[in-house]
Each structure stands twice: as C-alpha cells, then as structure tokens.
C-alpha cells in the first residue's frame, strides 16, 4: 500500500506546484513591445444559472472583436479580448472583474448578464478607473447603484415596462395580474409594470411572487387569479417559464399573457404548443430577422452566425439573442468614442466618458438594434423595444415601441459627479 500512496501524493503535490508556476508566469507577463493593443475584458456567465446566456455573449463578443480588428482596430491599435467566467455569482464576478483589470490589464469591461454581478462590479469599476458596460437590466444600475464609470449597455426593466404598458393597456387588456419569480429582477418588473399600467389607465388586481426554482406553479395560481382578470404579466424564464406557462394554461386557458424581456429567448415557439398561442412577449431584439429587416441587422446576424429564424448556424439550436446586441454595440460605441475623444490610456477616461455621455449612434451593422444613445444624465441606453407575439407557432413582431415612449426621467445626474 505504501508505494501507491506515495505515487498519489506526488501526483497531487505536483499538480499544485504546476499551478503555482503558472500563477507567477501569468502574473508578471512582460508587456508586449510596439503598438499597445487595447484590451477589453468580458465577464461571461459561462457556468452557473445563466450558463446558456454566457455561451452566446462570449461568441458575439469574439465575433465583434474580430470584426473590429478586420476593420483596422481602434485608432490604429489592435483589440484583444479577455474572457472570464463569473459563475453567475456576485462574489466570483467581483473577483474576476479585479482579475481582468489588475491581472490582465484590461482598459474596458463588458457584460455580465446577472444583475447581482453587475451591481457588485460597479463600485470596483470606479475604484479601478475602468469604464464598465454591464449587460443586465436592473434599473438601479442607471440609478443609485451605478456611478459615472458605468454605462448600462442594455435597456433596463423600467424602460421595458414603460414602453410595454401603453401597448398592453391599449391592445391586450385593462385588468392585469402580475406573476413574477421572487428575486430582484422579478420584483423590479412587478413594481415597474404596476406603476406604468396604472398611469396608462389600467389596473393591477393581484401581484403574485413565487420562490426561485419552483417546478409546480399550480398552488400559487389556482384560486389566486381574480376571475375578472383579463391578462397576466409574467417575469420568469427558463424552467420556471415553461412550468408557469403549462400550469397557467391549466388554471386559466383563456387569459391573455405578456412576458418580460428574456422570457422566451432561445425558445422554439412551435414547441410550446397551445398554452403559448397568442402569447405576447417583450424583447429588446426581435428573434427573427423579419421582425427587424434592416441590412445592418442582416449583416450582424451573418457575422455572429445566426440564421433568419434565430437558430445558430452549425448547431441548429436556438441561440440566445435577447441581449447579444448589448455586448456587440458597446464595442463599436467605444471605437467611435475613442476615435472622437482621442483617448489613448486610462488617464483620458474622463474625456472619453464625457464624449460617450449623450453620444448618438445610427442603426447599421454596428448598431443592429436600431438608433440609440447613452443618456448623459444617468448613462442609460435609450433604445426602442419590441413586442413579439406567438401566432400559430410562429414568432411575429406585434409592435415596435420607439425610444421616445421608453424614456423615463432620469433618477440621477452623472454629469455632476466627480471622477
């Protein structure tokens, strides 16, 4: 027994030694001489609860950087992408954010789909003088939880609900019930939708909050939805959404349904069957090309390898498209702003931030989602949103809500914040 015990110990000890060596090597890798590349870090959710979304965000970011380098990079400098996995956990996300900036020396950081990670990284971005484009929809990121170094890259919950409320009351129904998953994203959707529906003359009869990871929604729906409710606004996704849809259909097959952004992302509408017939769902980016048939969008989808129906070319699996544009567009926004402000290093961050504040971008291959701008006051992305509907198993865009109807008065004024 003695001999193979020693073998096993040597095995595990040498593994640790190898680790320590790589630690030192990567820590002080010599800076490459010559023209200094611009380094962009990506905080992707490659594992954990949002693993599927991390996969698509990483693929889109790589495609964007390759496209950028093919067009000569930014201000003549090539762009390098560093990807780190935040495991969909705020503590790991914050650690990896520091690693990207301190260890890999990135100049900008993009994305984390998890609001928890984004909120955790906001103070660190300011501390490390790094401009950060979180791709999560918590409204506070453009409010009291963000700061002047933060540009929320995607539409936030308040914008989405404001835009949807008018359409919902006019076209779907007056008496609503909200059913959300009981964590921050769900609660934010409930509160925002309720305020804006009442503003538009509708009423919310009941607000139901269901704990995370519930596979049986019947106990929370049966007898809880008032008989006179005409429609349900729901905020859940993944397995929660699939179970919710089936159980809601069992309790109230007739009721109209409007889902929050993300609810049906990467979901084959035909597969959802009868319960999903007529279902409306918000989205900031139409799944099918037909919903946003512009040459820029067509080229964007070709570059990231997605066909006109939203399937990934090669695997023929549904690709998570909902917020990919919010990973793609900031890279090109950075190119425009850096070249406009003459940014060369982090020392010029204030100038770059001031340039980005209020900067407008026209729709095209670089901004496939449509015209947008970063509002100077709270650095929120002001862009239009869309309402998709499943009509006999097909996804069609029922309405395009222009940016003007999405805008809400800013909660803070970043321009007055010191750097």
């Amino acid at each position, binding site marked *: 027994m003695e001999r193979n015990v020693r073998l096993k110990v040597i095995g595990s000890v040498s593994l640790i030694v190898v680790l320590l060596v790589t630690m030192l090597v990567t820590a002080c890798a010599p800076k490459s001489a010559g023209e200094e590349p611009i380094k962009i870090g990506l905080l992707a959710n490659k*594992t*954990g*609860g*949002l*693993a*599927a979304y*991390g*996969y698509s965000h990483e693929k889109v970011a790589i495609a964007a950087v390759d496209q950028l380098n093919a067009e000569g990079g930014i201000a003549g400098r090539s762009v390098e992408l560093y990807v780190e996995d935040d495991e969909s956990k705020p503590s790991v996300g914050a650690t990896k954010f520091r690693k990207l900036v301190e260890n890999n020396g990135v100049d900008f950081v993009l994305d984390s789909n998890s609001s928890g990670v984004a909120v955790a990284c906001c103070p660190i971005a300011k501390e490390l003088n790094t401009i950060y484009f979180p791709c999560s929809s918590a409204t506070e990121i453009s409010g009291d939880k963000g700061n002047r170094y933060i540009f929320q890259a995607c539409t936030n919950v308040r914008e989405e609900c404001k835009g949807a409320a008018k359409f919902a009351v006019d076209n779907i129904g007056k008496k609503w019930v909200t059913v959300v998953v*009981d964590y921050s994203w769900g609660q934010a959707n409930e509160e925002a939708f309720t305020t804006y529906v009442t503003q538009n003359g509708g009423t919310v009869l009941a607000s*139901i*909050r*269901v*704990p995370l*990871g*519930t*596979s*049986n929604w*019947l*106990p*929370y729906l*049966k*007898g809880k939805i008032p008989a006179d409710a005409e429609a349900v606004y729901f905020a859940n*996704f*993944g*397995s929660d*959404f*699939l*179970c919710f849809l*089936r159980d809601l*259909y*069992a*309790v109230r*097959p007739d009721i109209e349904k409007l889902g929050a952004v993300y609810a049906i992302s*990467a*979901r*084959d509408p035909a*597969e*959802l069957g009868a319960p999903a017939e007529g279902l409306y769902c918000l989205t900031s980016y139409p799944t099918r090309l037909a919903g946003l048939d512009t040459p820029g969008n067509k080229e964007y989808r070709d570059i990231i390898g997605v066909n006109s129906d939203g399937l990934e070319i090669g695997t023929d*699996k*549904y690709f*998570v498209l909902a917020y990919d544009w919010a990973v793609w567009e900031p890279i090109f926004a950075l190119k425009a702003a850096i070249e406009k402000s003459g940014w060369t290093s982090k020392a010029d961050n204030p100038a770059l931030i001031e340039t980005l504040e209020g900067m407008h971008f026209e729709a095209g291959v670089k901004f496939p989602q449509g015209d947008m701008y970063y509002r100077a006051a709270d650095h929120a992305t002001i862009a239009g949103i869309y309402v998709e509907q499943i009509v006999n198993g097909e996804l069609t865009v029922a309405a395009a809500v222009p940016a003007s109807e999405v805008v809400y008065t800013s909660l803070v004024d970043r321009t007055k914040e010191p750097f």
Partner: protein
Amino acid sequence: MPSIDVSTLLFLLSDGLLWGFTIALVALGLSLIFGVMGIVNMAHGDIYMVGAVLALYVLEWTGNFWLSIIIVPVVIGLLCVPTERFVLRPFEGRPAVTMIATVGIAYIIQQVVLATFGGMHEKMPNPWPVVINLFDVGYSGYRVLIAVISVVIIIGLWFFLYKTSYGILIRASIQDKEMANAMGINSNKIAMATFALGGALAAIGGVLAAPVTQVFYLMGADVILLCFIIVIVGGLGSLKGTLIAALMFCTLQGGMSIILTPVEAKVAIFVIMILVLLFRPRGMFAK
C-alpha cells in the same frame, strides 16, 4: 383568515399528494444510500438530474419517452457500481468524508453535463398530453400517471426488499455489516447493489419528473435539500418513514399556499420541519 373555497384546497392537497409520490421515489433512493448505508450522498440531486438529461437523449434517439423508464435507471445503476466500488468504498463509516467525496462527485457530474448537454433549460414534451378535470381544473393527466407509476415502483421496491431473498440479504448486511460478513454474505457486493439501487431510484424520479420540471443542468439543487429533510424527518434508516414524510411534505406544501404567500409557505414548512426535529430528534419512525 381569507375565505378558503374547499374545492381549491382539495385540489391543492391532491396535487401535492400526487407530486409527493415522485419525490418519494428520489427520497427512497437517498434513504437507502444515506439512511441505511450512512453515505451522505450530496450528489443525489445530480443523479436525479442526469436521469432527466438521459431521458431527453433517449427521447431524441428513440423517439419514445417510455423506453427511458427502463433504460435510464439501468444505465445509471451501472454507473453507480464503479462509483461506489472505487470512490466511496473506503469512506464508508465516515459520514463527513463521504459528504465531501460526494460533493466532489456532484461537481464532476454537473460540469460534465454542462460541457456536453449545455446550460440551456430544455423543454421535455409531455409524453401523455391527456387533460383530466380535477376539482374543475384542467389538470395534466401525466402527473396522475407518474404518481401511479411511482406507487407501482414503490410497491415493487417493498416487495423486492422485504420478500425476495436478495432483498433480505441487502437489509441484513446493511444493518450489521460484521454479522453479515460472518454469515458469509459478501457485503461489498451488497453495498454496490444498494448504492446502485439508490441511484436508479433517483434516476427514475428524474425521468418521471422531467416533463413536469423540464431539464436544466442545475435542477438537482431544488431536490437535494428536500430529500435530505424528508429522509431525516421520516427517520434515518426507515424506508416507511421516508415515504410518509415525502407525502406529508408535498401535501403540506400544496395546502399551505392556500393561506400564505408562496415564500411564507416555504418558510413555514421549514419551521415545521425544525419543530418535528426538536420534538422527535430521531425523526418520526427512526428505528
């Protein structure tokens, strides 16, 4: 107290009871592995998950869901044998070490499934889309069917353990390993069989539950704590206790949500479990 209309209450109680049978399957598997063998199997939820994932693959390859009820438990049972033989065998008798070893196994299973199956929530189509009227609700017939299948499997398990000679060998050698060895029973082989049986039960639970809970590589987390509570509140080593605790837990969860908000219902059930543990420290039916 808000007025409770009886039909809703009855509906929720029966829905909870039906769901309780499937959860009981998974819990019985854990009861065998943890309650009887003393292995604190933190990977039990992930074996349940692999059962659901394999069911999806079987559906894709053979186009028939019902085959997976036979194929998947056998495949996972066979996978459990080497796991017990090479990984867990030396740790038996040391619960804390088995807990960490199975946490290691859980990490491996989760990440392998993530790497192969992917991180997407996949929908498992309902294999028996019949709708029956249960207290004027269009209730999915499939949920009643899996309850029936679970009952059949539980009776089969009872028959196997308490009536067949091999079953008696398992129960004997688990309760008193030294005595069983003294009587010539190869307790190592029995331990492998028991662990495989426990894993197979979790896998069947996964297969049956997949169309209800859908398939996601972290779905095991929703079940692992639930099963441990059920096994312990039911009474360590008592399969009967586990079955009753599973049914009680799920029915209670259904009923509670009639008066409490969803989060309060879950918290209330946890509090009830704590009270049960305080007044019956050895669980309800502990030997």
